[in-house]
């Protein structure tokens, strides 16, 4: 049903271009409209997520959470965003101006760029790249530059330490992140997200079933990539005040904050697509005629809930234990997974 809605909207847009006399650049305008729509959707979704995190954490801690601003406190994030935008932009005098300015923008933009290849429904995707998986992995590495710039340019020992720790962490956890996706690519032989979902549709099972190890390592690595607990040493408030974003206030801080949530959304969307079957319904509930888009969002929310529950349940890993876990535990597990998957693929002759 999702692709029908998209085609209807596309038709409307063509008529709009004809009216405005812009039919010649219709292709480019289509892309721009898609990107803006995606941007708008993710922004609203992230605001919803901030509210969800506060509610989930509150109920886990036998509290209530926001319940005053708007129904069930839903407008709380909007109120916080307004507050942050109207805050004075306090910055250190001796900062390095250009990296200081670019870092939050980069953190925000880089994670958004990852959302363009994720399919929300059959053929509902901003850019159906053939190298979708590769693109996502490349884009998520941008956050390292953003964090290092923030840490260095703040002219603050704490920020520097936080920046170094974070960079080390993200770079180390890139490896198990990629390695946990490799078995999927081996089985399907495709890097295109839509094709991976179609493969799961034809095969009749979701990849989480044979590749549950890869699923768990992917979720763990994604949590570490987003600097979330239990891997949130760079932002550990109880240790070095704020880590790399200590010296940022107002909108710049909001961008880091929202960028972290967008990273979570991107990782969850990728996990939902690759491991949980994207827009496919649960095998025995396909008769309910619920649109694929709704199934996809439900899966994404489920994974996001898992990631949030991790934060409020587990203590924080120390930085050397964090590195140990990434290098000495996750990487051997993922490599073993690749080996086993390779054997199985050879034996059963699936994929390319």
């Amino acid at each position, binding site marked *: 049903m999702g692709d029908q809605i998209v085609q209807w909207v596309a038709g409307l847009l063509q008529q709009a271009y004809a009216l405005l006399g812009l039919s010649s650049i219709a292709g480019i305008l289509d892309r721009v409209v898609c990107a803006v729509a995606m941007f708008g959707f993710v922004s609203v979704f992230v605001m919803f997520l901030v509210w969800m995190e506060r509610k989930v*954490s509150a109920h*886990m*801690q*036998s*509290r209530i959470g926001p319940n005053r601003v708007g129904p069930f406190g839903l407008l709380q994030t909007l109120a916080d965003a307004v507050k942050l935008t109207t805050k004075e932009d306090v910055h250190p005098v001796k900062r390095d101006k250009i990296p200081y300015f670019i870092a939050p923008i980069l953190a925000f933009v880089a994670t958004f760029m990852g959302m363009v290849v994720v399919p929300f429904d059959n053929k509902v995707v901003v850019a159906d790249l053939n190298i979708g998986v590769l693109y996502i992995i490349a884009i998520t590495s941008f956050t390292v530059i953003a964090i290092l710039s923030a840490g260095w340019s703040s002219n603050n*020992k*704490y920020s520097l*330490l936080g920046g170094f*720790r974070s960079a080390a962490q993200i770079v180390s956890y890139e490896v198990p992140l990629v390695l946990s996706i490799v078995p999927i690519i081996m089985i399907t032989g495709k890097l295109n997200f839509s094709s991976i979902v179609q493969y799961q549709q034809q095969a009749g099972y979701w990849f989480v079933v044979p590749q549950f190890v890869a699923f768990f390592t992917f979720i763990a690595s994604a949590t570490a990539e987003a600097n979330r*607990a*239990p891997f*949130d*040493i760079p932002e*550990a*408030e*109880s*240790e*070095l*005040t704020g880590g790399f974003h200590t010296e940022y206030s107002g909108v710049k801080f909001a961008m880091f904050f929202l960028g972290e949530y967008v990273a979570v959304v991107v990782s969850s969307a990728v996990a939902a697509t690759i491991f949980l079957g994207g827009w496919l319904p649960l095998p025995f509930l396909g008769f309910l005629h619920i649109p694929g888009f709704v199934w996809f969002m439900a899966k994404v929310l489920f994974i996001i809930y898992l990631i949030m529950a991790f934060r*409020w*349940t*587990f*203590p*924080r*890993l*120390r*930085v*050397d*234990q964090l590195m140990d876990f990434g290098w000495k535990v996750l990487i051997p597990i993922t490599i073993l997974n690749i080996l086993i998957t390779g054997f199985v693929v050879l034996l059963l002759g699936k994929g390319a």
Partner: protein
Amino acid sequence: MTDLLLSQIKPGGESPFGTDEYVVNMGPQHPATHGVLRLVVKLDGETVKETMPVLGYLHRSIEKICENRTYPQCITYTDRVDYVSAMSVNLAFALATERLIGLEAPPRAQWLRMIFVELQRLASHLLWMGAFAGDIGALTPFLYGLRERERILDLFEMTCGQRLTYNYIRIGGVMIDILPEFVPKCKAFLDYFEPRIAEYEELLTYNPIFLERTKGVGVITPEVGINSGVCGPSLRGSGVSCDVRKQQSYLFYDQVKFNECLQNDGDCWARYRVRMDELRESISIIRQCLDRLEPGPIEAKLPPILKAPPASEIYSRIESSRGEMGIYLVGDGTPKPYKAKYRCASFSNTFVLDQLTRGWKVADIMAVLGSLDMIVPEVDR
């Protein structure tokens, strides 16, 4: 030496890469240091070279003030010496004065004192558990601990009207008798609370990340502990039997059955286990005291002006929630103490922080500091 540490960056550390040492100030206002404690930490990358606690940010000269107040007036100041565990300090001072002057509180007052001090121990350990878990990064047990602590504070409020600084245990007895509904409410609370301890343990005790952060970290060997003056649960985590309630029994602790909680490893995890076990022991003590409570007077007959005998002195110790609390009183025949010294557990326990964290990482400073259960008002007085 302070300015040396605070401003110097020494080139050439021991690392083969030629890293520099730098000094980080975990300043007085800090989300984790349990109050206004300043730590000047010399770091080599992530490794701690030296930790120097700078005290005095909460020095309120309570000892000097007590020299100018009468003995009953001093009791209000004792609440502020350790506001997380105020009943214990009240009791310490009241017992010290009673021993100095030669009074004894009636039995009902003694039992009541025991009940309230053990309830206070529960409340203090719950807050400690929350703060310790929060330092390690698990933010949820703090809320659970506070939830139970609220019920204990409700019990206190029912009795003496205060939730934090009680001024309840007075010289010669207690301030006011408990209400009739206190005993059933207290029993109901204990029944509600006991299974909750298992919940907290399930969340924390064998959690792999918690174990990684606390096992083997900040090991206090018995010899180092005793020599450095560590006391209380921090020393019991190293296997040393040092509970003042057992060794120099006061009130009616020799008439109730309870175990001294000991662990052998001496690391943060052992200290955590000792305090969780002490929660259970305190519940058992309170239950026994509630059963043995009999009607009677709650205050001894006191002279209108309490005077200490001239040229007298006493050093009286009790086991407060954090460890050994000693009060040294010198009397000179006047209604005011000539000298009042509060020997607080946190003061001695903070001394070993430097020894324990050398060579470890920055995150371990927080873990060790949390496990020592340090409260700044006790350190500074």
